[in-house]
């Protein structure tokens, strides 16, 4: 390999005094002393979450308080890191939601595995799983980092529902029972 000698330029007088460099640095310092803050005092101050943000996946209820998930397990199937684990279950025949027939017995999302890709939300045919604005998940153990069903509903809360398809289904059944449409 060829060796190319590089000639080092001698420093000028100004460079040798370091004064222009110090002044330049102080200029930056003083500018930031008076400029408005760009950082947040986290965690007391929280950033504003933009629309379409993909936070922690959560389960939601519809405006009537019905749990929307029917444990179809499509999210479990689509989840690339296999973070979701569902145990399907049947809704008791005497429940007010008996016409939905199916609800999760257990629903676990392992947040150590979750990559926040949002495929679960995209695939959900019942619009039951949503990546909302929660972004901070901490815990001391692996078990603490698994969100179980009750925690998922607590995080998810209630979201508006444009369809209420199961309520319509129930209404049609009630109408049929009272001699309406067969």
């Amino acid at each position, binding site marked *: 390999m060829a060796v190319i000698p590089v000639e080092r330029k001698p420093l000028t007088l100004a460079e040798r005094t370091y004064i222009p460099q110090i002044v330049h640095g102080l200029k930056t310092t003083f500018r930031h002393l008076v400029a408005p803050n760009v950082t947040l005092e986290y965690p007391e101050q929280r950033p504003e979450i933009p629309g379409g943000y993909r936070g922690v996946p959560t389960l939601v209820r519809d405006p009537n308080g019905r749990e929307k998930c*029917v*444990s*179809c*397990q*499509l999210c*479990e*199937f689509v989840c690339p890191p296999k973070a979701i684990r569902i145990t*399907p*279950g*049947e809704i008791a*025949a005497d429940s007010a939601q*008996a*016409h*939905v*027939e*199916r609800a999760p017995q257990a629903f676990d999302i392992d947040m150590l595995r979750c990559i926040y890709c949002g495929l679960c939300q995209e695939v959900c*045919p*019942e619009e039951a799983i949503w990546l909302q604005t929660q972004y901070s998940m901490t815990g001391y153990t692996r078990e603490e980092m698994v969100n179980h069903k009750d925690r998922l509903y607590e995080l998810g809360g209630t979201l508006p529902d444009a369809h209420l398809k199961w309520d319509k*289904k129930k209404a*049609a*059944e009630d*109408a*049929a029972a009272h001699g309406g*449409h*067969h």
Partner: protein
Amino acid sequence: MTSPAKTELVTVNIDGKEIAVPKGTNVIEAARLVGVDVPHYCYHPKLSVVGNCRMCLVEMGMPAVDPATKAPVIDPATGRQKINWIPRPQIGCATNASPGLHIRTQTPQIKDCREGVMEFLLINHPLDCPICDQAGECKLQEQSTGYGRGYSRFVEQKNVKPKRTQLGPRVTLDDERCILCSRCIRFSKEIAKDDVLGFIDRGSYSTLTCYPGRKLENNYSLNTVDICPVGALTSTDFRFKMRVWFLKQTNSLDTESSVGANTVVWSREGVIYRITPRRNDEVNDTWMADSGRLLYKAVRAESRLVAKDSLAALLARAETILRLSPGLAAVVGSGQSSVEEQFMTRQLARALKAPAYLVSRTDSGDGILVSADRNPNVRGALVTGLIDALPQSYLDELGTAIDRGEVRTVVSVGEDLMAAGLSAAQLAKVSVIYLGTQVCASSVAGAVVIPTLTVFEKSGTMVNQQFRLQRFAKAVAGPVGAFDDLDVLARLITAAGGSAEPSDLAGVWGRLAADVPALRGLSYAAVPETGVVLDSSPWAALPFVEGESLHHRPARAVANA
């Protein structure tokens, strides 16, 4: 022997592809042979043809002949015989192959027909796939994707019909999902001979229901669930347990009787969720009994045996017992073991110079797929030479030998000696080495209990009532504290002072192929999925207990005919 069926071949043309098929072959089946999918719901290869779903519409034509002279009419444009196409579509399921038959399935008319039929079928279908157990194996899902129009024009209210109906102890019906194909009705009538299902009401009110006061509770009811193309009939046991797309399929056998129905075991991550039949036209067609579908419950039963000690410790104790009373041992094999295990049991008996017994299990057969012999593999014991006569229900001979003090040690490979007729007093006189999967009187009384694997946790072969050697494969791993039967037997043989035997399936098959005349030249991998029929002539004179069943006529019935 029955004479081979007459196979007059005729050439048919399906979508431009010529194929020779036996005369009378259904167009759906003929199309399948050339790789053309004719979508259908009501047609089932093992049931009568009704043609009520209209999904299999095809265009049909015949070569033109002059009516007067019967001379072929040549199309001047192509120089070949002209095809007279029927202007209206025909149903494929009720069209049989005849010479020169021409079928088109890819024309605009057929595409329109399929879209139209799909649209009608989906009008009153609830489209509740997220809560439907059939999702993933639903013909309606598949064919609406493949042949439907993709959107709905229906804005009116859908029908309301009964849901969550218990048709019987094992079958749940959702009438809204039913597309009225009548497969279940025909199955109940034609195969199960229990005509309990039917349609009531007319038009869009038509509803599948049970005859008043009756239930769908015959031992074949779950086959209606298998053949239901939609999610109308679902298994109560499997209801909402797991999605089918997660389940791994493993080919296995129904071990409840000597019919040896072919099955598929569906499991996920070491847990079995269901068992369904696997098509074998020589054994069980596409059916199996409900009772055989519950056998997987034994895998995780409360009574499952697992060892706390290591296998080495258990074998050391077994060896001590075997050495204590040399020449005074007896071996009880099992008709529920695989061929390989029975061979190893025979080797064990030889190493111990001990007599080998087998326990027969008989009950009445149902003439379909449960035979009188409830041991799946008695013939395996004959083939491998473990026994040379048919087994008795009770081990009276062994009991007498124990009473006379001729037997001090009994090695039982999966048989409960108490249930097989030995008294508690007789059991107290002997040391029992028990290999098995479930807690029973023998395992309680056993001096050494070595837990082994169930049929779902190991691979092997069995010989059914037709002397058909069939394979079953390992579906799930065994629990901790249960040991592979072949390994245990091989080590017991060594402990008994016999020569070293292989402890894996391939090794045992090497010995079987060399040592057992009926299995000469065979290997485990070479056994086809549908099984291979062995030469049964050495045992032709034995009075087997089986009666006639679906694809089996006992030798004595054939002789009398």
